[in-house]
């Protein structure tokens, strides 16, 4: 029968294990206790990744703003001029100003809602917004963290948000504090190792000491030439270079899969 339990969350600044990307070893992690008893660790993005994502997003929305305004203003004016009309005209606001301003100011809210806490800039930086239980943030949380940009952007260039990101343990700005969110690195997609090769290698290793030197060498070379070294090595090249101990080490490596 399913049981109910609220998950306990904690964010620990402990050093992370080696990660596949080029992140610092000092990357803090959000540790989530799962109901299964198997912990999860989310590497938390710091000020650098945040700034990187923000700059890319800012460039995109600035380009979108300028593109819409430029094209719409040219169409509205009917000549090579981007100037606003002297007398305010509803069509000018509805077709030129409002969509351009909307694109610029609603960019984060709309994209984060549509892409479940991601924007193009965050994708490039390899980060995304997560709730503190590791799930995708809810609509209310995304709206709240975006409304608090009003505070984070003060006094200039997101000064408050940047300072908050630098001084807080989880590298979060005020909006994240209010919404209960943070930015975590995306986990890179990892390909599974060749299961068949690993299985055969494991079988050979279990009988390693029972086999004669020549037999196990012959079998190891055969397996490694087929499944090891990324499939690039030939039987002859392995046989000529590898010692018995080296062959065994290679087989053990094959059972574990290549290290990340």
């Amino acid at each position, binding site marked *: 029968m399913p049981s109910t339990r609220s998950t306990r969350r904690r964010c620990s600044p402990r050093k992370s294990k080696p990660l596949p990307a080029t992140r610092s070893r000092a990357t803090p992690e959000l540790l989530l206790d799962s109901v299964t008893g198997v912990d999860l660790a989310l590497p938390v993005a710091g000020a650098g990744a945040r700034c990187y994502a923000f700059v890319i997003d800012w460039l995109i929305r600035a380009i979108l703003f300028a593109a819409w305004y430029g094209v719409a203003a040219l169409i509205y004016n009917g000549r090579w001029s981007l100037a606003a009309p002297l007398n305010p005209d509803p069509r000018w606001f509805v077709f030129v100003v409002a969509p351009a301003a909307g694109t610029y100011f609603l960019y984060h809210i709309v994209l984060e809602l549509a892409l479940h806490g991601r924007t193009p800039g965050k994708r490039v930086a390899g980060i995304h917004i997560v709730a503190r239980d*590791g799930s995708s943030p809810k609509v209310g949380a995304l709206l709240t963290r975006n409304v608090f940009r009003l*505070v984070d952007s003060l006094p200039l260039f997101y000064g408050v948000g940047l300072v908050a990101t630098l001084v807080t343990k989880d590298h979060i700005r005020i909006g994240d504090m209010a919404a209960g969110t943070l930015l975590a690195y995306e986990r890179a997609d990892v390909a*599974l190792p060749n299961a068949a090769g690993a299985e055969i290698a494991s079988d050979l290793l279990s009988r390693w000491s029972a086999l004669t030197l020549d037999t196990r060498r012959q079998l190891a070379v055969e397996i490694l030439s087929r499944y090891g070294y990324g499939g690039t090595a030939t039987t002859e090249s392995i046989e000529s270079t590898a010692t018995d101990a080296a062959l065994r080490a290679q087989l053990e490596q094959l059972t574990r899969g290549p290290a990340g």
Partner: protein
Amino acid sequence: MTRAQTPTRPPADSRDQALRAALLQRTGQWQSAAARSERLSRERASNLADAAQMADDYRLLAHDLARARRLMPDSRVRQYLESAYLRAHATLYREANRPVEALLSLFRDEIPAVVRWLRPHIIWATAIFVLTVGAGYWMVHTYPDLISLFASPDLIATVQRGQLWTEGILNIVPSSVLSLQILTNNIVVSLFAYCAGFVFGLGTLYILGLNGLMLGAVFAFTGQHGLDGALFRFIVPHGCVELSVMCLSGAAGAAVGEALIRPAQGDRMKSFQVAALRSGKLLIACALLLVGSGIIEGYLSPRADIAPWLRLAVGIGYWLAMIAFLRPFASGVTPRTASTASSRVTPAAPQ
């Protein structure tokens, strides 16, 4: 008597080899679990069995990840399982995607509940606003020169000529543009009053106080030139709701500030988060109400041909509609007493 035979255990190395081999035979199940969680992260389960299988997948991945962490800690298998397990976790704990029900619940239940929860804050915010209106009125009534602190030179000059700055405004700016400008500005001010609560409520207090002082000061100033009646007639259609919304967003900001000053949840950060998320729902209602008052202010308020009784009727009618929408006096469980813990049905731990 014979000694009991102790079962012979294989050496640890061989046992681990065997366990690794057994683990690697499950790669097909991992891949299908990863594919299912990837699919269900984008769409809803096609049937109950599909959803239940997701929970089983989660247990499977957790179980195998625990083994992989012990048996092959530096392997790509462990990394793959970490990634698949995390994705399954996010999928399983994803919020149900029911936008229509969520919107209905928001407007029917949640916003009125937030208003009831914020009743003390609304009373205090309104009291502060009214007091500052009185203070502004008294200041300019007693020391007329102080109007330069609250109003622009153009506005002062216009009133001194015996005119309201709102007269003939529609000849300069079309109603649609005026509405858009006003409602955008009002929504930003409202949101700022809420966010400024982060400074322990002082920012909210400042915005409420400043707006109250300005309103009182301008009324006193127009009264000195015999234009206070005209100003009242201009303000009344949209102002009833607009000023009420100012107090509501101030109350939301005050709740955020109070959560930081005296945390109710034990932890200051958690308390701030709960207050911000809860009171933030009211801001959605505030924004919608300000759209309505912006339209009224752009289309109706500046028109000289609208009778005073009609202006009053519109103002009071819209305000009553706001009360009906927010239902502050309805009985119900307030969020303060409602359970805030999100209990979820979770799969049983692996055997």
